[in-house]
């Protein structure tokens, strides 16, 4: 499986490099290969088929326009494509919500000094995220995962878990610090 994935990633990387040179055939091949996954992202995050169809078109337009910015040393090509798709869907989600909600929610920028666990040491060896997730309390791990997969905001997560907004913010920030420490270990 891993070998297949690697080959798949290598082919996606090759296609992206050719799209950077305005190769339309490569673009079509890239679409063939990746549009099902990226459409899946949009459906899940936007929960609306028409929005997802619009989003996936805009995502591929971004891929065409930004293929030259892909750098292999900054991560795998599928990760890059997923990031484009998720970021686009997130922006759409956030934009279609009401401004009043955004104001409530616009919090102060993270201040991890509040937590004692802030000795993030950079190492090149990372541990598997799934192992590290198991070290979080279950409701916090669930919050982290649904934030990522569904694109839920702090406010939505707070409502879902029945905790105050600030509590949710603290949960996730501390969880991120723990995950970073765990993966750096």
């Amino acid at each position, binding site marked *: 499986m891993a070998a297949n994935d690697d080959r798949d990633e290598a082919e996606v*990387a*090759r296609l992206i*490099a*050719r799209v*950077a*040179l*305005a190769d*339309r055939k490569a673009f079509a091949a890239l*679409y063939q290969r990746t549009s*099902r*996954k990226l*459409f*899946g*992202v949009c459906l*899940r995050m936007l929960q609306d088929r028409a929005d997802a*169809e619009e989003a*996936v*078109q805009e995502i591929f337009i971004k891929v065409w326009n930004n293929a*030259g910015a892909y750098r*292999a*040393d*900054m*991560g*795998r090509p*599928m*990760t*890059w494509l*997923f*990031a484009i798709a998720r*970021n686009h869907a997130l*922006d759409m989600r956030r*934009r279609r919500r009401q401004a009043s909600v*955004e104001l409530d*929610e*616009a*919090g102060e*920028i*993270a201040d*991890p*000094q509040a937590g004692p666990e802030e000795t*993030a040491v950079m190492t090149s060896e*990372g541990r*598997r*995220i*799934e192992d590290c997730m198991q070290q979080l309390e279950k409701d916090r791990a669930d919050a*982290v*995962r649904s*934030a*990522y*997969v569904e694109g*839920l*905001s*702090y406010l939505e*997560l707070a409502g879902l878990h029945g905790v105050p907004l600030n509590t949710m913010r603290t949960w*996730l*920030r501390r969880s*991120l*610090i723990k*995950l*970073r420490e765990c993966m750096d270990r």
Partner: protein
Amino acid sequence: MTTPENKRSDRSRDEVLAGEYVLGVLPLPDRLRVEHRLRTDKAFQEIVARWQENLASFNDDYAAEAPPSWLYASVEKKLFNTAAADQPKGLIWSSLAFWRGLTLVTMSAAIFFAASAGGLFHKPAATAPLVATMGSANSSISLVTLFDRQTGRLKVTPVAAGAEKSKSLELWLIEGDSAPVPLGVFPDAGDGSIVIPPDMRNRLKDGVTLAVSLEPFGGSPTGKPTGPVVASGKIGA
């Protein structure tokens, strides 16, 4: 101001902010601020890229589903039926038009020896510079390569305009059927010259192929060409 403790605290704060950004929990104004910063802050880009890679296994939670069949045609229409955007003219190394003008086929190469003043048309002395023109069949663009054995300096000059931001051009040596050997990465500005490593200089001779590939900024991360070959030519062909 920049005590180690402050630095560590900034670093930690950035780790959390990048993690929040990648998770997607930030409200829109904060997301936009982060994206603005990402445009210029290389170190922060790396922190974000690392989180993206760390959390990438969550992407398996997305169930793949085929988009409707009309959708691709609609993307193409939006991209290619509109008037071509004006490409900013800039340095050859950073103009998109250059790359888009090159085809990916291997090009015919015209090689000749440029002799020094007295030696025109004579078999070149060992110290005469080697000159190769690397071009593409369907393009008016070519690269003139000049290698000076004495200084080990190899200079590539694009002879018609064009290139792409955040990409680098990397020069490769191909001997027979062997795997390409990297000779160096062209700086994205300047006169297009690079110094060939001393131990490689004797390997630039008749019959070997020079190729230039498009690589991520800074050159291939793997030591082998990862991007398309945009030009290649044989010395002495």
